[in-house]
């Protein structure tokens, strides 16, 4: 596992027949700012990839030699725009992961924002009952304090472009009293079900008709002490046979430098659940593209986020964002992937 810890999963995969595919988009679509947190999904015989495009470019000095004036980790917006805007760009890919076409999803149901995080963030792409959805967090319509809720955004290809056709805010189960819900993972073979939280695993069901959410599985006695950090949502939850499911999750270290300026570090992990939502297997935590290590503190610094996973022609396709600035698809032979998962 040495190369995994130091060089990342991508290095591990490439050494074993995998390949890494960079996604680039025309600057007319992006103004060269960040494209990140992609979600990949096979739909109607097409390989679709939703890419989150933001109006900032992350500045992250992993090695701390060249921090920004305001700190080692900064979101660099236009200086006259305090908003964090997200647009979703839908891409169709060919079998070699080349972008065949790309265009911004037209959000027909947008309203005047009430907060400065605008747009549907980190949308996971999936279909339930033949309806294609993006599901992510939206924080621009509930109050002026940043309250966020998961939202299912139904999209269709109409008149030559992807368009939002319905918008379905998802309340938190119970009294819906939480501040912000995010990173719920849709369970691909269980319509309207999400893994809301991983440890202990909480599965919820959303009723799209009456717009209520119910917890259908939660056993707090199953909390695993093996993990140093919270396990947060990542990709879709995909079935892998025998009632088992698998997903990439992520973990965050929110750090401060000596001047108390924010910094951060993300790890990923793969979880496997049995048919009763017991975590029966997990990998060690890892990065995709490696990281730089502070040799005096042992801290690592890397910003990555995987939000999409699918299987195609004997390979697993993992879509992840790097530093909020770049988008990649890692292709791994299934055998290599499951061997990696099995090693733990």
């Amino acid at each position, binding site marked *: 596992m040495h190369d995994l810890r130091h*060089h*990342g999963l*991508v*290095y591990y995969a*490439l*050494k074993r027949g995998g*390949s*890494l*595919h*960079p996604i*680039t*988009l025309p*600057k007319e679509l*992006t*103004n*060269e*700012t*960040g*494209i990140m947190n992609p979600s990949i999904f096979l739909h109607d015989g097409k390989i679709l990839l939703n890419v989150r495009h933001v109006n900032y*470019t*992350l*500045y*992250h*000095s*992993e*090695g*701390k*030699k*060249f921090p*920004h*004036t*305001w700190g080692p980790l*900064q979101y*660099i*917006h*236009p*200086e*006259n*725009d305090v908003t964090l805007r997200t647009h979703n760009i839908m891409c169709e890919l060919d079998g070699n992961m080349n972008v065949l076409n790309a265009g911004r999803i037209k959000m027909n149901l947008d309203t005047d924002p009430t907060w400065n995080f605008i747009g549907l963030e980190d949308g996971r792409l999936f279909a339930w009952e033949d309806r294609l959805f993006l599901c992510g967090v939206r924080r621009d319509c509930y109050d002026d304090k940043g309250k966020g809720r998961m939202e299912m955004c139904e999209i269709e290809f109409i008149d030559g472009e992807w368009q939002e056709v319905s918008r379905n805010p998802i309340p938190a189960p119970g009294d819906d009293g939480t501040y912000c819900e995010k990173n719920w993972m849709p369970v691909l073979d269980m319509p309207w079900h999400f893994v809301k939280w991983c440890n202990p695993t909480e599965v919820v069901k959303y009723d799209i008709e009456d717009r209520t959410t119910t917890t259908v599985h939660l056993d707090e006695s199953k909390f695993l002490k093996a993990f140093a950090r919270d396990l947060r949502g990542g990709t879709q939850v995909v079935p892998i046979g025998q009632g088992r499911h698998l997903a990439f999750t992520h973990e965050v270290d929110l750090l401060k430098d000596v001047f108390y300026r924010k910094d951060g570090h993300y790890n990923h992990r793969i979880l496997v659940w049995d048919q009763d939502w017991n975590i029966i297997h997990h990998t060690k935590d890892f990065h995709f*593209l*490696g990281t*730089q290590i502070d040799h005096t503190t042992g801290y690592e610094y890397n910003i990555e986020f995987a939000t999409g996973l699918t299987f195609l022609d004997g390979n697993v396709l993992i879509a992840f964002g*790097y*530093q*909020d*600035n*770049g988008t990649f698809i890692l292709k791994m032979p299934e055998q290599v992937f499951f061997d990696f998962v099995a090693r733990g």
Partner: protein
Amino acid sequence: MLQKLLNEQVLDPKNAEKVYALAQEYDRLEQGAMAVSLYLKAADLSKDKILQYKSMISIGRCYDRQGNRRYTVEGAFLDAAALLPERPEAHYLLSKFYEMGNMWKHSLMHANIGLKLSVNSRNLDIGYPGCKALAFQAALAKWYVTGTQEGKHALFDLKFRTVLDTEHKERVDRILNSIFYPDTIPYTQEDFSRFKFPFPGCEKIHNNYSKHFQDLFVLSVFKGKKNGTYLEIGSGDPFVHNNTALLETEFDWKGISIDSSQALCYNFKENRHNTVICADATEIGYEDLFDKHCVGPVVDYLQMDGDEASIQILKKLPLKEHKFGVITFEHDSYRLGTEIRDEARAILKKHGYVLLVNDVAFTELCAYEDWYVHPDIVEIDPAMRGKKDVNFVWDYMMEPIA
């Protein structure tokens, strides 16, 4: 290419050169955000200051392309300058950066630092256009900091004494068209190789004093004559913009200068050896003056600078009894119209003078003097004839730069 570089980098992830090469490819593909991440990673990974320097500069440029991220652009360029303060590129970019914000003193400081450093710097291939671009930045900033002639001179030198690329040439032209040329166009020894009418001793002249080459014109006509004579009407300062200072100090000419300003005449007496008379040139009896000072029938040079009164003074001169080898006659037609100029031309033509350079101008448009010679006294060099229309003095005197 991107795929190839990406694979190479992933399989050698701590190799800063490979990270940098990948960053450059993203940059070339106008994928600025990812390029920023990789440049920063390269800078963090590397111990090579040059690579770190190039990375930070490239980061600044990527953010600059995205627009409206000035603090970040500035910070990246400052990081580069702090890293290798002895290199010019970051100073050039900082000078341009501060220009965009009209922070002219900052711009000037970095341009001047860059100019000091640029001579021996090898090209780093990061889009630095070279020391002439720094010279442009310095000139521009100098003008906006001071608003003085010094700033104009710097821009003028760029236009006429420097080979510029098209972009900077157009910018210099635009600026000079809006702020005008400097009041004076001095000659320096560096101009010698381009001087059209050299004469013996010319090569030793370090600088002249006239506003627009009048002293050099006189010496050219007289082929560097020593011990000539002059009458200088409207002498002004003994050296600044003075047409006879060079003749006296370097070529031992004698003569009489006249000015109405007591202060300037006092200054003249203190600093020059030749005679100065403080008087209203329109009220002088010139025949008496010439008698008193034993002025002979031939005087080599007459300067006529009486502003609106030039024509009145000209009419008072004993032109039948005295001939002048060269006359520089100020008519200021660009502001007073052509009446004075045309009347003077008629008078001087009647007395045998040849208008060698008509409508001498301090820009391509603004004519203010005529330069005459008398064929009885000097041999006319056909090469010294001016054009028929306006003769911008720099173009008249200097070969264009190669």
